[in-house]
């Protein structure tokens, strides 16, 4: 059996204790908690056998919760995938809130969580666009001719 590498991308990554509770408090302030609670009840009912939801659907519900979206932003920031400056825009688009609310929310998150996180690398370029899809399109290297232009290609037919 192959031994898997369990190490995280950022070995020093430690979020301040109770980050989840801070997010919950902020969400409550902006009125997201009741919506999230309803969705969580759906998952819970399925666990108790009251309704039937497939595991994939449960994960989907979880992913769409406001709390999950904020927590993921924190994780992405800590992993060095996004900059602090790009967070208001992400919040605005993902939670569908006003610019003002997004800025305020970011400020609160910054004060209570972000300041304690040491990201892997600092991203200088501000984030401008939300990626449409998570799948990364691999970039292929441009194929260069093997023979340098100054050398004569002996196998090439002369153009008449």
């Amino acid at each position, binding site marked *: 059996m192959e031994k*898997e590498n369990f190490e995280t991308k950022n070995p020093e990554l430690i*979020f301040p204790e109770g980050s989840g509770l801070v997010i919950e408090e902020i969400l409550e302030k902006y009125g997201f908690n009741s919506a999230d609670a309803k969705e969580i009840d759906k998952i819970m009912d399925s666990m108790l056998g009251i309704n039937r939801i497939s595991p994939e659907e449960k994960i989907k519900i979880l992913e769409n919760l406001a709390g999950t979206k904020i927590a993921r932003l924190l994780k992405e920031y800590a992993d060095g995938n996004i900059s602090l400056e790009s967070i208001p825009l992400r919040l605005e688009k993902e939670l569908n809130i006003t610019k003002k609310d997004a800025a305020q929310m970011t400020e609160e998150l910054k004060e209570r969580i972000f300041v304690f996180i040491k990201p892997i690398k600092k991203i200088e370029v501000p984030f401008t666009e939300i990626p449409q899809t998570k799948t990364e399109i691999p970039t292929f290297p441009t194929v260069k001719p093997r023979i340098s232009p100054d050398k004569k290609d002996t196998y090439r037919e002369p153009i008449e």
Partner: protein
Amino acid sequence: MVCYNKSMLVQKIKNFFFSFKRLNKKSAIFLLLISVVFGLTLFILPTNIAYAGWDFWNDIIDFFKNFGESILSGMIGVIMTVLIAVSQLLVILPTLLLNWVLSPHFISVSFTHNDFVLQGWQIVRDFVNMGFIIALVFIALSTALRIREFEAKKTLPVLLIIALLINFSPVICGVIIDASNIVMNHFLKGVVGEDSIWENLGEQYTKLWEEGWSEDPAKMLAKGFAIVMFNLVSSIVFLIFAFLFMARYVILWLLVILSPLAFFCRILPLTKRIWSMWWNQFIQWCFIGVVAAFFLYLAQLLLSKNIVSEGPSSEEIEGISALFTYMVPMVVLIVGVFASFSISAMGAGYVRKAAMGAGKWAGRMSGGAVRRIPAVSRAEEAARRKLERVPVLGRAIGGPGAYEAGRKAKMETATKAIEKIPDTPQGNKDILKRISQPALTEKDRYARAAAIEVLAKRKDLTDKAVKFIPEAQKLEANAKTIYQARPDFAPHLTTIDSVTKKPRAMTTEEVMGKIEPAEFYRNIQKEALGNSDVVFYAALDERKFNQMTRHMKVEQKREFKNTFFSAPAPPRPLTKKEQAIMKRRIKDLSTSPEWQV
């Protein structure tokens, strides 16, 4: 029967003393004088017994003394005679059986040159000769394909030597068997000869018969008890030895028949293990007889020389020496049995069990006298555990807890050997192979149990090991290490129920309760987090969940999350409080950045 209460008794005593008032003075003085003289006779006379003038009183005292002793000795003598007779009946059959098995009349044919062995050996040899062609092709292909392990350079010389030796395998086996038989017969001569163990026993019985009535009751009791114990233990031991010597003949024949195949297996590295197994078994079965014969010889020597009673004796020591005359040879016989079986020859365990079974049957047939001895009516483990608690025997085999300590020591040695294999994917693969290989000897079983423990420590214990977990636990493999890595294996582990005091399977909930939160995330194997019960009980425990949130690795978290959401239903109905906890966990999995994996 007349019953007196306390007040009535007091009245009676008062009446007795007040009746003296009715006597006249002369009669009273006469009665007093008689009492004083009688009292002095009783208390002073025994100390001045040598005085010639007191012979008459001496005779009277001696008469009463001897009369009491004679009645007591007589009663003990009768009881002991009956007990000894019963126990002697039990020892006769095993003794005769052992005498017959050890005698040259039992099997007069040779170990290697008899019709049965020769015909069997020829069939196997012809079969192996065909195998040589296949081996040659295999070596040729390996050489062509450059598989270094089987290259001609390495394997061809061995093949040629073995091809020659196979034809001489009965001779080689014969030499080793003869060597062991020479040593064995040297000891057995003393055991079955003129001064045999049963002749000595017979002499001791006769002595007891002749001297028994005149001896001190305490000495008689001690000697009688020792003889009964010796008879019971020796009947079992002789039966075991008889079965062992019988099995030795048959197994050595079979091993000689299989010798060409074993020699052939020596050629290729792949089959070398079969050769070593055969070789070990052959040597062990040859020399198991030597060990058994040696201890039988020692026991016989102790009985014939009567070592303890020959020393300086006093009244007090004599009683104990009578006990030791039988106890010491008995201990030697028991040690002999364990020493013979510690050689761990394959099948020796079955011989012992068969002898124990026969002992049990014999006990039932003789009115259940033997049934009271734990060693007869129980299997090896229970018997040993009980024997450990017996004062004299227990010490001989290491005292209470020796059986468990012995197993722990064996387990420790096996674990150390397995731990030498490097903790790499390939190393762990090799360890896993050991688990799936058949365990034929006790050593193999310990190696398998150790392999399970080591893989659990290395968090690489796969489902392949599941069926061997009960055996590993029996052989003292650390159950905690196993369930810490794989709590999902809990139903394969056993525990003693606190209420019924009987063994029962453990539950996942139980083992999850035993694992400390800090130990959980450190030792849990990723595969265990694929079990919905494990994930459920981990989620219910807030401390465990918090530790997991802070410290668990990404891959493990991913597995936990997947199982958490794909579990069809909790293992048991949830209480209101538990429902609230589970809801909290869903929230935690949503809002904790650590769980965004």
